[in-house]
């Protein structure tokens, strides 16, 4: 089935076409079934393709197929450049492929249940399927330009889906409507994409190709390319990734992206699209490994974002916004991992994060659904008795994200921390550690405020609070199992050693050949150098990570256990609390530093256009009119006047004729 990978993105696209034509006349169940089916078949094909890929011998697990020529560009930079509609599958894209189609399918199923009150379900599923098609194009493209098509396509779908409730207000603090939120996401992404595009053009100029395989070969022997050029390209591409994956300074769109329906938040703004930046950086690992400067910046930005976003998660009161900041923070973890050279850890965390964050979002959606649209966690509480299935799965996801040993997030987060430590970036390691502590804190706070304690809404809503239908809870359970067991594919060697199982880190062996780690095309370095350092240190790191997670949970439990205690703590840290409540005033800062000057400049240009450009055009018209006003005085209507002028003209002509003779 490896030869059919180009078909995988086309299946959801077929769903788009079908639902686009007939969707409005079909009931929700039919539209949903078609949408789910198209993704399910794509998932089946993906599994088949990946299984076939696994049959190939280790080290040459790579498959490429060009189905058509796209851009025959001719001679560029000394080489004949032709960009095909090329698809490829290797261990790296296989992970993404399975996550996107698998989690995507679960979220599609969930959406059928979630959207049952919605009138515009056809539009929703069309967008969702279009997103799947574009995301799969992004994952399967074997060159950067095809990836970029998918990259822009998912951005478009993100915009469409954030603005799905385009006529609804969204954020009271900033006065944003849902349509505004969509626009914000699109424009912020465009800033990053611009840098991405420039980076891509430099790659073409420098290497004469955009194919990943050829780029890797070219980069392996990067003789003629100066280091600053590689760094520049790396940073430009990373800036694009910052936009897509919501990193500082372009993270501002993701919290507002929560304006979209919750399954969208789960699929696009947690599990798949926002991880595209991480995927791209890992995809270009050969480039980044050749430029330590760019890697240092990636690691710094990632770690800073991880900490920064986590702190904002502490005070958010919207259930989805807590998760949104958490997503930004976790993406920071992934970039930090990529930045310290632990690409495998980054992809591992990408995968487990897709499981538990999708589960958290879907669980949040289930809560919102059960409370008839209530999203404010201050008005929730004690819901564990009303929504037992949602609660248990949500709790599993929380344990996974906080990094309790055995759960998926533990293994990936541990690998990232180990990678940071082993690469010598102790500052990054420490920052990530603090971020992990805060993560455990705000996740416990969220779970406590939603599911424990006393219900803080009104009685009417309590009596109506209900568990969601099976269509929604079954995907939750599947994701719950994945959040528990999904990390077992990457158990670090030192841990499996405790049980005498030897090295069973399957994921690592699977991914390592597709990654170029700094200092050579090697497995050990990509792993985070676990086998280089002694096992004692590794065990120590695992212990520290676990203690940090438990500490965060304990701290939050202590504060939020009793009503009112949290308010007292907030008062004690008044200015800090205020700072966090207002999200560091970053939106206001951007408004002041970027938007206001930009608007002022726009107004200046508008005035210039009105006064100067329009003025010139109007002056031309005015000249014609005024001269007409003057010349019309000669048209008296009197025949004898004309005759006189005629005669005068004759005399003038005669004069010249005679003079010429």
């Amino acid at each position, binding site marked *: 089935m490896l030869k059919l990978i180009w078909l995988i993105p086309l299946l959801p696209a077929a769903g788009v076409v079908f639902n686009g034509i007939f969707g409005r006349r079909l009931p929700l169940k039919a539209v949903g079934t078609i949408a789910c089916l198209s993704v399910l078949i794509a998932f089946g094909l993906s599994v088949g393709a990946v299984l076939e890929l696994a049959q190939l011998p280790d080290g040459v697990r790579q498959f490429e197929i060009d189905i058509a020529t796209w851009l025959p560009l001719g001679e560029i930079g000394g080489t004949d450049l032709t960009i095909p509609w090329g698809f490829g599958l290797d261990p790296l894209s296989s992970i993404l492929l399975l996550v996107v189609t698998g989690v995507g399918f679960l979220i599609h199923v969930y959406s059928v249940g979630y959207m049952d009150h919605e009138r515009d379900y056809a539009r929703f599923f069309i967008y969702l399927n279009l997103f799947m098609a574009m995301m799969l194009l992004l994952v399967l493209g074997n060159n950067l330009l095809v990836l970029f098509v998918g990259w822009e396509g998912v951005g478009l779908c993100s915009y469409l889906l954030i603005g799905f409730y385009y006529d609804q207000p969204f954020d009271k603090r900033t006065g944003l409507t849902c349509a505004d939120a969509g626009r914000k996401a699109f424009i912020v992404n465009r800033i990053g994409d611009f840098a991405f595009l420039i980076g891509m053009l430099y790659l073409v100029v420098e290497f004469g190709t955009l194919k990943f395989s050829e780029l890797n070969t070219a980069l392996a022997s990067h003789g003629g390319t100066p280091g600053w050029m590689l760094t520049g390209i790396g940073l430009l591409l990373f800036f694009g990734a910052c936009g897509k994956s919501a990193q500082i300074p372009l993270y501002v769109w993701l919290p507002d992206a929560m304006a979209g329906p919750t399954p969208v938040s789960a699929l696009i703004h947690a599990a798949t699209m926002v991880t595209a930046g991480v995927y791209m950086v890992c995809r270009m690992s050969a480039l980044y490994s050749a430029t330590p400067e760019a890697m240092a910046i990636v690691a710094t930005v990632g770690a800073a974002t991880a900490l920064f976003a986590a702190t904002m998660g502490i005070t958010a009161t919207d259930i989805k916004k807590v998760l949104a900041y958490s997503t930004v923070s976790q993406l920071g973890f992934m970039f930090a991992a990529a930045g310290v050279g632990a690409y495998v850890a980054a992809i591992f965390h990408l995968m487990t994060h897709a499981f538990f964050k999708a589960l958290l979002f879907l669980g949040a959606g289930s809560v919102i659904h059960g409370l008839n649209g209530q999203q404010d966690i201050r008005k929730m509480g004690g819901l564990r008795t009303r929504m037992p299935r949602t609660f248990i799965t949500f709790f599993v996801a929380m344990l996974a994200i906080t990094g309790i040993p055995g759960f998926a997030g533990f293994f990936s987060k541990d690998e990232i921390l180990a990678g940071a430590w082993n690469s010598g970036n102790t500052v990054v390691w420490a920052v990530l550690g603090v971020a992990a502590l805060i993560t455990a804190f705000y996740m416990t706070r969220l779970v406590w405020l939603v599911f424990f304690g006393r219900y803080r809404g009104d009685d009417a809503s309590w009596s109506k609070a209900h568990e969601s239908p099976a269509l929604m809870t079954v995907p939750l359970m599947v994701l719950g199992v994945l959040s528990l067991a999904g990390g077992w594919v990457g158990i670090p060697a030192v841990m499996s050693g405790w049980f005498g199982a030897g090295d069973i880190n399957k994921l690592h062996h699977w991914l390592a050949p597709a990654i170029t780690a700094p200092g050579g095309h090697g497995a050990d370095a990509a792993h985070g150098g676990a086998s280089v350092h002694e096992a004692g240190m590794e065990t120590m790191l695992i212990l520290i990570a676990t203690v940090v997670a438990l500490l965060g949970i304990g701290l939050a439990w202590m504060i939020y256990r009793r009503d009112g205690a949290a308010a007292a703590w907030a008062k004690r840290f008044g200015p800090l609390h205020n700072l966090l409540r207002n999200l560091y005033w970053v939106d206001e800062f951007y408004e002041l530093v970027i938007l206001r000057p930009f608007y002022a400049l726009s107004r200046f240009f508008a005035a210039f256009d009105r006064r100067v450009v329009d003025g010139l055009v109007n002056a031309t018209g005015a000249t014609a009119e005024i001269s007409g006003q003057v010349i019309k005085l000669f*048209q*008296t*209507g009197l*025949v*004898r006047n004309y*005759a006189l002028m005629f*005669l005068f003209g004759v005399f003038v002509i005669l004069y010249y004729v005679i003079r010429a003779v």
Partner: protein
Amino acid sequence: MGPQWLLVLSAVLFTLGAFGVLWNRGAITILMCVEIMLNATNLAFIAFARQFDSAEGQIYAFFIMTLAAAEAAVGLAIVIALFRLRESTDVDELNLMKW
């Protein structure tokens, strides 16, 4: 008698006609002055035809005569129509054809 006297006569007649057109206000008088101008031209044509022993000048003279007849017919018809409408043939009163 050389052609020069004929040409001088033609020029004098033409000038008289032209000034008549400019000077007079009555439509009929203007038409008459136009006839004088046309005939002055005829005279010049004939004089040159005689001088160069060529028939072309004479042919032109015939054409101009025909044209003059047609012009007079049309012109007089317009003047009559005008008089019926305005009870006057003073061209200075006819200044509607302007902006």
